[in-house]
């Protein structure tokens, strides 16, 4: 009696997961499939983010961590960071560096993509085969590679310029604030060009050839075709790249670490470097977190624009 009752009245969990005839409903299956992801994202992203906020409104140094008492500090850490001239110049520099890098990435990426799109020539296949290379290089290895190229004692940029007779004595690229700033940008741009090259190539390949043929019949030269046809049609992909890659460029860290470690002086400090230095060199987890949070808000603005853009495109 009781056994048959159990059979006709399966437990809640069994019914929830298996439903009728052992099949899962859409909501149940989705729930089941997303359990690991939700647990992982809560433990490793949501919780740390909340904890970072906690750190940023408390006094957390090595000594307060040891004693276990981290007194509440309100917005003091944010004021400390926002009143630090170094942080403000660093944040401004990060924005300039990010935008300059992204513009260079877009320009060079478009150049590479146009080469890849010249399918009438065999050499374009070589470019297409090798375009991913910079993307695959570890960023810290990339930074060290460029620090060798820019090295003032035996770097290859100096030796090349010297052997061509363009300079008389070696230039100390990484000891000059402006040149070091440019060096970091060049190293970073080299690594991220594949992103723009690949996306631009996909977009260029999607433009029908007939448009160019018609333009040619109408007497438009290559220059006019580029400005009047190609560039306007690339506008959507440019927007995606501009927003997304700027958000990521603001997080630049590895190339700064390897090339200059922020120097000379503080001329190549970036926001992520400021936060890293404050937290892990000065062991000020509170102000370090506050700085990281301010960076997160700036990046969040770009992310918000990007996500809205993506959703609008997905609805279309």
């Amino acid at each position: 009696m009781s056994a048959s009752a159990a059979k006709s009245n399966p437990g809640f969990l069994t019914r929830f997961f298996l439903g009728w005839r052992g099949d899962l409903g859409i909501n149940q299956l989705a729930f089941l499939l997303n359990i690991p992801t939700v647990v992982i994202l809560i433990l490793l992203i949501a919780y740390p983010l909340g904890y970072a906020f906690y750190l940023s409104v408390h006094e957390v140094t090595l000594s307060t961590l040891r004693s276990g008492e981290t007194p509440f500090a309100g917005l003091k850490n944010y004021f400390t960071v926002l009143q630090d001239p170094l942080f403000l110049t660093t944040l401004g520099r990060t924005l300039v560096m990010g935008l300059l890098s992204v513009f260079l990435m877009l320009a060079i990426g478009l150049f590479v993509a146009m080469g890849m799109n010249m399918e009438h020539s065999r050499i374009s296949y070589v470019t297409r085969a090798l375009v991913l290379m910079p993307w695959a290089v570890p960023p810290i290895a990339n930074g060290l590679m460029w620090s060798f190229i820019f090295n003032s004692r035996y770097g290859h940029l100096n030796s090349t310029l010297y052997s061509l007779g363009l300079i008389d004595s070696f230039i100390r690229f990484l000891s000059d604030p402006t040149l070091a700033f440019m060096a970091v940008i060049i190293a970073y741009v080299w690594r991220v060009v594949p992103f723009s090259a690949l996306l631009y190539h996909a977009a260029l390949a999607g433009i029908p050839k007939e448009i160019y043929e018609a333009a040619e019949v109408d007497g438009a030269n290559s220059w006019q075709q580029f400005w009047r046809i190609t560039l306007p049609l690339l506008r959507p992909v440019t927007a995606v790249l501009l927003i997304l890659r700027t958000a990521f460029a603001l997080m630049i860290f590895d190339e700064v670490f390897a090339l200059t470690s922020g120097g000379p002086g503080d001329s190549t400090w970036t926001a992520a470097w400021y936060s890293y230095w404050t937290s892990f060199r000065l062991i000020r987890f509170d102000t370090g977190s506050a700085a990281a949070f301010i960076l997160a808000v700036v990046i969040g603005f770009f992310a918000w624009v990007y996500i809205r853009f993506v959703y609008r495109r997905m609805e279309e």
Partner: protein
Amino acid sequence: MSHISKKARRRQLIAWVWNLAALAFILIPILSLLIGSIQSEKALISNMETPLPKEITLRNFIVLITGDNTDANYPVQVEHFPRAFLNSAIVSLSTAFLTVFFGALSAYSLARLPFRGRNAYSFAVLATRMVPLIALVIPLFITLRNLGLLNTLTGLIVTQVGFLLPFTIWLLRAYFESLPGDMEEAARVDGCTRLGTFFRVVVPLSAPGMSATFVITFLLTWNELLIPITLGASKEVQTLPVLLASFISDYSLQYSIINATAFLALTPTVILALLLQKYVVAGLTAGAVKG
């Protein structure tokens, strides 16, 4: 007729010059690194006037691969190279496997199941991708320290999985959406359950997409610096990027050996990316356009 062929020749010439310039941009820095790593430090210093190598030796690579610390001319880091390489391999393979496994489950539900709250959920997943890593490693450092997971491979794998999962979900979701749905419908009509359809039909069909995602996550983990340098900087668990970063604080930088280390660090990922180029490009393009 000759006018057309002249025009075609001009087009060829432009294409060659254009692509050679693009290839120079891509290849010259790596070539420079290679030239800088196949010479001894002495040869490198004595040959400052020209970038061409004076001698060619594989000694830097051999010393690194064997972890040979007997030669006092080399920095101490060389002895840690084999261990760091192994650590990188363990962490990257584990992370790639776990993210693709968990990511596929979520990505499938986002691509194929119109469940309640799907839009809000996918929005949340996309948003977590944009959290800057530096804001996460500071609290994770304290948490892992309290849990005794600081300077362990487990701690590194767990944190990397958390950070890469949203990206993996986004890549795989785009891939699942690109699959035609008729095989799944046929399986459903034949009486296969939804879960059975996923494991018996969707998983085998999406082997290329999953492999591409595996390669991309492997590569991103292999290349990651900020997580291991803050959460696993000790000699026993350091990965290759941490080993590379340890050269930077040296009093005088020996670029011959730094270049060789950097070259060996980039070789696996560059080879993987070039071999699986077609899949990686498809994955990255889908991932970047849609998320």
